């Protein structure tokens, strides 16, 4: 009796048929999340993976110049390489020039050192007439880059198939001839400045947004419905307007002959011939970005404040606390999930901004995202753009991690 299994009506043991039914249900549930899962893979996981891959992938050049890199392995990087190396380069470059396949090489090497592009192009034109001896001499007669040790060092540094050189470049570092990591030339150290500036702008915009949004959200949450709805529309209205329109309207308002300056002069706060500069500096960036990002702070704060019962404050006060104590000990701690969500949202959005600062920020308006856009659109150095993008991503994840350690990620509330 005890060994006999319970059978279902069609003779299959009940346990198995139950499992079968359950599996079917699980599959159905999986199919429901399937589209989202696929969407995430296609639009998120795959592009980010591709970006990370691009930032370290440097195989193209290694495949095109195998002989050269083999010859350069023994070279010490002190003086110009020997005849054999030049010959190896000829062996690699000649077929590329004949088959018109050298183009990608110009760009890739020009990223490494300026001047490679025109030097290689000149070489491309003359290499067909080279005699089959004295390669070094002929190369050196063709273009000045072949007489310069620095260009050979730059070439040698592109040898590895996988390289983190682009990440170094993003931190103003580079390899020297012995592959030691050294600082970039002083007048070209720009990326550190841009990183710091980006973080600074994002930080202050978050602070200003918080200071402005907290009282507004409180008002929204406590006012009677008919007023708060009206106020809510005022908060959301800019949300429905295009980013560029809002930025350009700030340009109209903030310019030196603009309405805000007119008002300041009319109130007598400044002389007419000495109007304050409200735009083309950090002031413009802060003002415009704070206004644009404000709804992202107001909405999470509002939704959290809405759930706090007013009787809690009353209870605090009736127990003998001053209004400030009640606020500090009861109300504020209850809003922390909303503050966390709002600050994270605003900071992460601000760190990737570039159109607004570029338009109203003047010389201080170029941030790290502008550099990424430049390398995507103009120089076509996509691997460097990918490296900068990955660094930005790591930065955001770090902030998320710090937040998790300090406040706890469960303690975040969007609504």
């Amino acid at each position, binding site marked *: 009796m005890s060994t006999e299994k319970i059978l279902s009506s069609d003779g299959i043991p009940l346990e198995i048929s139950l499992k079968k039914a359950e599996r079917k249900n699980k599959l159905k549930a999986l199919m429901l999340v399937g589209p989202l899962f696929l969407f995430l893979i296609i639009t998120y996981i795959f592009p980010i993976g591709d970006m990370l891959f691009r930032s370290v992938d440097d195989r193209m050049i290694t495949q095109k110049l195998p002989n050269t890199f083999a010859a350069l392995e023994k070279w010490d990087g002190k003086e110009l390489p020997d005849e054999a190396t030049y010959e190896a380069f000829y062996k690699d470059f000649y077929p590329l020039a004949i088959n018109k396949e050298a183009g990608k090489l110009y760009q890739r090497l020009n990223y490494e050192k*300026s001047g490679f592009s025109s030097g290689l192009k000149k070489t491309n034109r003359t290499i067909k007439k080279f005699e089959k001896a004295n390669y070094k001499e002929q190369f050196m007669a063709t273009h000045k880059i072949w007489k310069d040790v620095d260009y050979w060092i730059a070439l040698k540094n592109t040898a590895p198939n996988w390289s983190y050189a682009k990440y170094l470049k993003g931190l103003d570092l580079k390899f020297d001839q012995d592959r030691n990591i050294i600082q970039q030339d002083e007048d070209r150290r720009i990326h550190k400045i841009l990183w710091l500036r980006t973080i600074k702008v994002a930080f202050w915009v978050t602070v200003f947004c918080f200071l402005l949004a907290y009282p507004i959200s409180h008002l929204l949450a406590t006012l009677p419905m008919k007023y708060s709805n009206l106020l809510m529309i005022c908060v959301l209205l800019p949300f429905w307007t295009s980013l560029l329109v809002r930025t350009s309207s700030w340009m109209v308002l903030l310019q030196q002959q603009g309405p805000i300056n007119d008002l300041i002069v009319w109130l007598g706060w400044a002389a007419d011939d000495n109007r304050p500069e409200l735009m083309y500096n950090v002031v413009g960036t802060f003002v415009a970005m704070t206004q644009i990002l404000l709804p992202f702070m107001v909405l999470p704060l509002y939704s959290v404040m809405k759930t706090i019962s007013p009787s809690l404050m009353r209870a605090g006060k009736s127990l003998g606390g001053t209004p400030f104590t009640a606020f500090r000990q009861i109300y504020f701690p209850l809003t922390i999930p909303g503050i966390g969500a709002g600050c994270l949202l605003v900071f992460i959005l601000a760190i990737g901004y570039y159109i607004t600062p570029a338009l109203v920020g003047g010389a201080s308006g170029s941030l790290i995202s502008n550099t990424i856009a430049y390398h995507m659109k103009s120089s076509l150095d*996509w691997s460097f753009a990918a490296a900068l993008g990955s660094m930005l991503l790591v930065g955001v994840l770090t902030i998320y991690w710090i937040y998790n350690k300090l406040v706890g990620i469960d303690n975040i509330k969007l609504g």
Partner: protein
Amino acid sequence: MKKISKLLLALSFVLSITTSAFAVTVVSWGGAYTESQKLGYGDPTAAKLGIPVNWVDYTGGLSEIKAQKEAGKITWDIIDVYAKDTIVGCDEGIFHEFDFDKDFAPAPDGTPASQDFFTGMPSKCAVGNILYSWNYAYNDATIGAKKPNSLKDFFDTKNFPGKRAIYKGAMSNLEIAITADGVNPGKGSDLTYRKLEADGGIDRAMNKLKALCTDPNGGCVFWNAGAQPPELLANGEVVMATGWNGRFFNAQMEGTPLVQVWDGQILDYEYFALVKDGPGYADGSAMKVLREMTSTEGLAGSAKYIAYAPWRKSSIAIIDAGEPWFKDGKTSMVQHMPTAPANTKRYILMNPDFWADNQDEIGEKWEAMKAGL
């Protein structure tokens, strides 16, 4: 209901196939410029050849076409690009290499195309379209009694106090700075770029600009978009602004009292490039459209709508004979062209090779300089 929607779907599918099979897509910068291209030679070409020409706007750079190529689905045929982009695009194998005299129509008198164009092309993948100028302008209503008339005056904060608007990038600024610092470009000689490439040349130009931007009587506003310089002058934000002559011309036509200063202008070019393996590449329709648009009458046509100069010498002759050529029927165009004799007493000829070589390194130095302002 279902039937109708199915029918509509099928119809739109058929339509999209037919249009994409025959139309040639030309990509350009938008605004008044694309308008001048469309009306000047796009529509006449389409009417003449019976091949529809679609115009698409973009914001410059090769990233989009590179992405299309990597994805294996190219939708653009002809792109309006900067010189340095023709070089980069040619190197990357994105653009078709022309056999110039065979691919492009000779002038009406039989002069081969390569002789009819002002100068040689920066790469084998480029065919000239318009010449434009980076010059500077001031607002006649606000400048005062003394009027600037040379590139030196742009840097003269003693006689002309006030802010200057300059381009956000290093391009064009280094050229005018080193010219104002005493390197005479003459009529487009290569001295300007030789001096910039020499040791310390870049620093020399940047110091000149740094001095202007940090001068308490001067100061700099950096502009991003071509519409900004006339705007900044009109509302009195700056006393002088560098910019593109066509934009200043348009503002003048709209009644803003701007005066353009042509001394030391930088002559720059726009080009067309033909995308390899675009939808109209295999059957040659894209090439046919391009040949027609860059013909003598084609290029002359766009000058009816904008103050940029056609590349062909023979087009100028047509405009000259047809004055007043501008669409309003009363403005003579030749005097507003960057190539007019009165405007070319002293000019710099843009060197795209210099920028293709050095843009990254100079760009970093330029941003570092700007960060220290």
